[in-house]
């Protein structure tokens, strides 16, 4: 199953490489301009020398071929503005974003499914209406605004949470102290990012649960005299999870995208801030690397989710 999904993913990856490469090369100016600019007035010859050194003046086709070949050997080219291979620059920042995205994903899924389940069970009663309104509120608030307000309230005024960043720097903590410190930094950004997706998963679960509760086998289960709670969990939720988990995979891409914004607000040292930095220094190879890396993460997440769906749904051939 995993092997089949992986094979399925390769053409998508190739597509992502080509599409993003072409898009990025539509950008006027390139990293050499930026570097020359930053270093304050390199001469025309040195600019030309740098450009040819990095092969930026080869025809597009050649650059694409060289780049695609490189990608599959994990060589994403050299980052001009960071003076290091792009792969290292990204892998350096990837864990932070993964940690943020994965935590937000779990929070969103757990709370979302619970809320969705409650909304479905109490459909159209006051619990459903209030929960729906609350969920819709989360669905309408821009994540960066939620982040900003959280900082103002929790960090600056109440001083409950750190201002940003992923760890207390230079404090050389170890063991549990380190874990506690990292968690302490993680809570606000992860919740700000998760807020929007709690809404999505809650609405998905509600629709799926209602759909399932109208199925015939629920009536059979009631005819067997099962307790309502057992009915809702073992039969209802167990079936409703299948569409929810499938859709969760589709939204994972947006989650990683959303992380970009939340990172800038919370000073989180992840790919988001790297993107903004790479944009400012017009470092196309880093931007390309980020697009590819995040796409790989999304594909990996989807493969994992497909595997999970196969576990949940026996009808899907394992």
């Amino acid at each position: 199953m995993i092997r089949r999904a992986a094979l399925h993913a390769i053409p998508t990856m190739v597509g992502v490489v080509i599409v993003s490469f072409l898009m990025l090369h539509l950008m006027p100016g390139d990293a050499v301009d930026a570097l020359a600019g930053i270093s304050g007035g390199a001469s025309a010859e040195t600019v030309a020398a740098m450009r040819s050194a990095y092969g930026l003046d080869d025809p597009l086709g050649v650059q694409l071929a060289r780049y695609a070949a490189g990608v599959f050997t994990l060589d994403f080219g050299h980052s001009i503005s960071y003076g290091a291979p792009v792969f290292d620059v990204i892998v350096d920042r990837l864990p932070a974003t993964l940690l943020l995205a994965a935590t937000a994903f779990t929070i969103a899924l757990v709370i979302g499914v619970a809320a969705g389940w409650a909304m479905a069970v109490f459909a159209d009663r006051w619990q459903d209406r209030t929960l729906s309104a609350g969920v819709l509120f989360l669905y309408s608030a821009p994540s960066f605004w939620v982040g900003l307000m959280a900082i103002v309230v929790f960090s600056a005024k109440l001083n409950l949470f750190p201002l940003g960043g992923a760890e207390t720097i230079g404090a050389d903590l170890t063991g549990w102290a380190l874990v506690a410190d990292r968690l302490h930094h993680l809570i606000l950004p992860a919740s700000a990012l998760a807020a929007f997706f709690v809404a999505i998963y809650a609405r998905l679960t509600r629709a799926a649960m209602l759909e399932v509760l109208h199925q015939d086998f629920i009536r059979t289960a009631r005819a067997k005299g099962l307790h309502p709670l057992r009915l809702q969990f073992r039969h209802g939720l167990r079936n409703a999870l299948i569409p929810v988990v499938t859709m969760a995979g589709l939204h994972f891409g947006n989650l990683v995208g959303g992380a970009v914004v939340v990172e800038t607000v919370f000073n989180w040292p992840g790919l988001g801030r790297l993107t903004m930095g790479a944009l400012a220094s017009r470092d196309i190879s880093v931007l390309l690397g980020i697009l590819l890396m995040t796409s790989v993460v999304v594909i990996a997440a989807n493969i994992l989710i497909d595997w999970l769906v196969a576990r949940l749904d026996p009808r899907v051939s394992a």
Partner: protein
Amino acid sequence: MTVIDHPLRARPKRRPLRDPFLLLPLLVLLAVAVMAISAPWLFPGDPLDMVAMPYLWPLDDPAFPLGTDSLGRDLTAGLFHGARATLLVGISSAALCLGFGTLIGAAAGYLGGRTDLILMRVTEIFQTMPTMLLVIVLLAISDPSLTLIVVAIGLASWPMVARLARAEFITLRHRDFVLAARALGYGPFRIVFIEILPNALPTLIVATSVLIANGILIESAVSFLNLGDANTVTWGSLIGAGRTQIRTEWYLSAIPGIAIILTVLAVNFLGDRLTRILNPRLRA
């Protein structure tokens, strides 16, 4: 020889507008639309013009009910003109997504076979790339402008609609009334646009509300990251401008934030109610 085995049932009347969850959002959206349209008359000058003392708090000075920002620009004028840009981006990006996505989804769903495979592979590519990242990169391609933002949001979010449309068309394609249409010799265009599309509309209409909300949220994030057009005011750019004074003059970011939330909430509520009206299964 008329034989009626059972009289025609009377048509049930539907009274949607009395349902508060539909009336309220409509009113909010109406208010925002009025703000957008009336902006040039109520606030003729350039909303970015410096007209007063900087850092006036809301209700300090009746002439500037919502106060002024660091350069003494009137926040109320900004909000009104911002409404215009925000709505424009929200609606046109939704329209772009809907048109493009439905076309691809319908073709893939209806034609099936190789076309379906190829189109779905393309959709997958755009769906794999995180939306926000894709928008940021697209915006970096040329000078920021509202049209570029709309195109970028459209390009990044059409896969969602394509997936929805394809699912609808695949189920509807096998329905008897489509087989009947083919058996009656209707052409492919008539079958797709006149027979199938009206049945797929409920899902697409509901998706529109999500797209508009999505468009507004992405636009506000983009302006917040200062990737937007510096010459036009949007609610997102107001939040971005107020960001550095978040601790002292927090109203500069809070008020446009609330405006965005109210509008998007209204759009979502509308979508939510439409879903429940059009899809009876979602009721108890």
